[in-house]
């Protein structure tokens, strides 16, 4: 366990030693801030109009601002993942430091978990940028906090899944650009899967739909924790980390 934390700590340090961590946090903060500005502006206009016309439309901060925004955040994380994971193994293989890690008394699994955990913590830091905006909503409105927490849990699970896939891709190459590009493509495909099948209802369609990463986030964004979604994400994380460790045993991948 201490080796996992040691490698995790090392990963985090190198993220923050380079501009990459700050850049990603700034990008996410900007996009999310822009999103919340538009959503709040439209919400204000809508509720103002409703008042003028004397209608009593049930308005809800959670449903109209937070839920779509966190859905938006889940889409952004598709774009962030490749940039987080592309260096994980590709860089170590390029610079030869992988030889140090793999000839030290640590297991492959400890290296893989440490790196994944490091990437996860950076992802948490990036997500935390949205707290600034949400804190303002909580200061002036009265949204329900539970669905927000559930949505964040969903974001974490989805992120963990994508990061594990990215880590797997990164171990296959020593070229960071290829690692990033392929990861982006895979993430995009997983996202598009439910588009392809949106008008189908056959068995194939439902299986393909089940594999889509985004469909499982829907319930979380509504504030509902469904066991099958949690199991889907956890099993995807497990599977991706497992094939990473299998790939690591192969000699093609090592040097």
């Amino acid at each position, binding site marked *: 366990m201490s080796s996992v934390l040691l490698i995790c700590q090392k990963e985090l*340090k190198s993220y923050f030693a380079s501009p990459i961590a700050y850049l990603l946090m700034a990008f996410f903060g900007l996009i999310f801030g822009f999103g919340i500005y538009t959503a709040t502006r439209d919400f204000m206009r809508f509720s103002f109009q409703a008042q003028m016309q004397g209608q009593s439309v049930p308005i809800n901060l959670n449903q109209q601002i937070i839920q779509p925004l966190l859905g938006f955040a889940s889409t952004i994380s598709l774009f962030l993942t490749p940039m987080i994971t592309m260096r994980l193994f590709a860089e170590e293989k390029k610079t030869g430091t992988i*030889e140090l890690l793999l000839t030290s008394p640590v297991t492959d699994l400890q290296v893989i978990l440490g790196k994944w955990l490091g990437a996860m913590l950076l992802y948490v830091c990036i997500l935390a940028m949205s707290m600034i905006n949400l804190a303002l909503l909580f200061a002036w409105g009265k949204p329900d906090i539970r669905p927000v927490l559930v949505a964040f849990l969903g974001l974490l699970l989805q992120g963990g899944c994508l990061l594990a896939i990215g880590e797997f891709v990164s171990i296959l190459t020593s070229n960071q650009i290829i690692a990033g590009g392929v990861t982006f493509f895979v993430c995009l495909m997983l996202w598009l899967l439910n588009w392809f099948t949106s008008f189908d209802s056959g068995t194939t369609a439902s299986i393909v739909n089940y594999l889509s990463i985004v469909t499982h986030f829907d319930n979380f964004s509504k504030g509902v924790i469904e066991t099958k979604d949690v199991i889907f994400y956890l099993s995807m994380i497990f599977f991706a980390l497992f094939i990473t460790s299998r790939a690591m045993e192969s000699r093609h991948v090592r040097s």
Partner: protein
Amino acid sequence: MIKVEGLTKRYARTLAVDHISFEVEKGQIVGFLGPNGAGKTTTMRVLTCFLPPSEGKATVAGFDVLENAMDVKRRIGYLPETPPVYPEMEVVEYLTFVGKLKHIPSNDLRRRVNEVMEKCAVTDVRTKLIGKLSKGYRQRVGLAQAIIHNPDVLILDEPTSGLDPKQIIETRGLIQSLAGDHTIILSTHILSEVEQSCERVIIISQGKLVAIDSVANLTNRLRGAEAVVVELESTGGRPNPSEVQQRLEQVSGVSRVVMKDSRNGRLAFEIESLPDRQIRGDLARTVVNAGWNLNEMRSIGLSLEDIFLQLTTSEEKETEKVGVTT
């Protein structure tokens, strides 16, 4: 300490290491020699559990590299060809990280880090980013990393590459001081380095073991033939160089006479004997009987360089032959 039996490593189409077997005793320094692409790095990578062997067995301190990888890893320090350093870390930070990675107890860690920095002469750059260091410093940080946990076995892939002459001498001294407690395998392409710091040499070429012996034995074994330099005094074209050459060629046991120099009143010849023939006495007698003035006579040993070339090129010729016949 290290035992390799029938080790073979195959890449997709190429055979990198072909049934190599050797043993290294505890406390020895062994030099690993071979031309580029001979399989030195591959063999080292198998010994450090970085790559699994395709065939054969390798054990370090009695532990198999496949079955007891953890026990092997705990006992080895490895310096790869490119020092495995993180450019974004400071030297102290990096060595502390490696120390933790190698399970050095935390109360001992600081002392060990300072100790290896002292040994490898990197104390003056301790708070510099490794990315800003020169190749020589990086190499020494890499060496510090390999010895930080005081491993039984040290495996060094070209430890002196990129260092300046003074640092090379210091590094060699450091490596020699580590012998005794540590078993060391080092690969190099600098032959004089092997002659100076290694007790035994393993020469491989194209994945095959060509020779394994002590440096002295190897030199003797291949020095069946003796080479002698004879220098005469000459004034005004006398004695006649071609006459001298003819007379020397007639001495029994001489296989070849080559004139090296005929300027400034000197006549120098390099004379090679047939295998296992002593020719110096006869040569001296011939010269003196002819009435010439003998300035100098000395025998020149074949250097490890010659042996290395002889071994590795004859190997190539053989494979060429095979290539033609098949």
